[in-house]
């Protein structure tokens, strides 16, 4: 997508709120995305995890904190897991905060994956938060969130 607006990061209050919320074991509190009825990052994660609490940890969302061009941003998600039949990662989902849609991808793994690690390239319309959520075979959900700054190319072709 080629949205050219660059939003200032209002990170301090949001992050303080986030730390407090997570400290209490509550779910993520993120300000709603643009548009009155646009689904929030939180609601998208809620759809994925249904009733289960989403804990922080075990997941590593590896993405550059500063990106020169948002058109193809490399992303790797890895989850600590033995990937055995008894204990493995079932699904890994990636969500974004400020693109037109929250969903990025959902990967379905299983014990035959051998390793809980997926990589792809994503589009980021603007500076925003990305979240990776993993569903484990024991029914628990884990997540990792990263804020990414996107600087856009200067001379844009018509």
């Amino acid at each position, binding site marked *: *997508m*080629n*949205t050219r607006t660059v939003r200032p990061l209002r990170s301090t209050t949001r992050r303080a709120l986030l730390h407090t919320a997570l400290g209490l074991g509550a779910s993520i509190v993120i300000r709603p995305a643009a548009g009155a009825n646009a689904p929030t990052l939180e609601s998208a994660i809620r759809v994925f995890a249904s009733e289960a609490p989403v804990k922080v940890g075990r997941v590593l969302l590896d993405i550059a904190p500063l990106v020169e061009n948002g*058109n*193809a*941003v*490399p992303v*790797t998600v890895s989850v600590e897991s033995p990937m055995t039949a008894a204990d493995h990662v079932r699904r890994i989902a*990636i969500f*974004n905060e400020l*693109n*037109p*849609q929250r*969903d*990025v*991808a*959902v*990967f*379905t*793994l*299983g*014990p*035959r*994956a*051998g*390793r809980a*690690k*997926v*990589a*792809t*390239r*994503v*589009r*980021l319309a603007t500076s925003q938060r990305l979240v990776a959520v993993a569903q484990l075979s024991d029914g628990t959900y884990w997540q990792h969130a990263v804020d990414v700054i996107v600087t856009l190319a200067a001379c844009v072709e*018509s």
Partner: protein
Amino acid sequence: MARALITMPATAQKGEVVEIRTLIAHPMETGYRRGDEGSVLPRNLIRRFTCVYDGETVFSAELHPAIAANPLIAFSTVATVSGMLTFTWDGDNGFAQTERVAITVT
């Protein structure tokens, strides 16, 4: 037929975790962009990717517009038996592509 590039080892030991990298040429048009005349470029996405090996879907992905054009999907699988891995991409406008790569497992 879109150009696809699959990188994975040709041989592996039984039980070894094999890394697979796939690339396919596809615009992944989001449906949010406008063309030069101002009209919206219609959505045209790959929606789903699967890898079938040794009789089972060992990996699959559901893709959305936030996945970059010419999508890269990298994952791993455990080498079980010699045979073919079948990769399929399905998407809008009847897009359907299959690639097969052989692996020898010792």
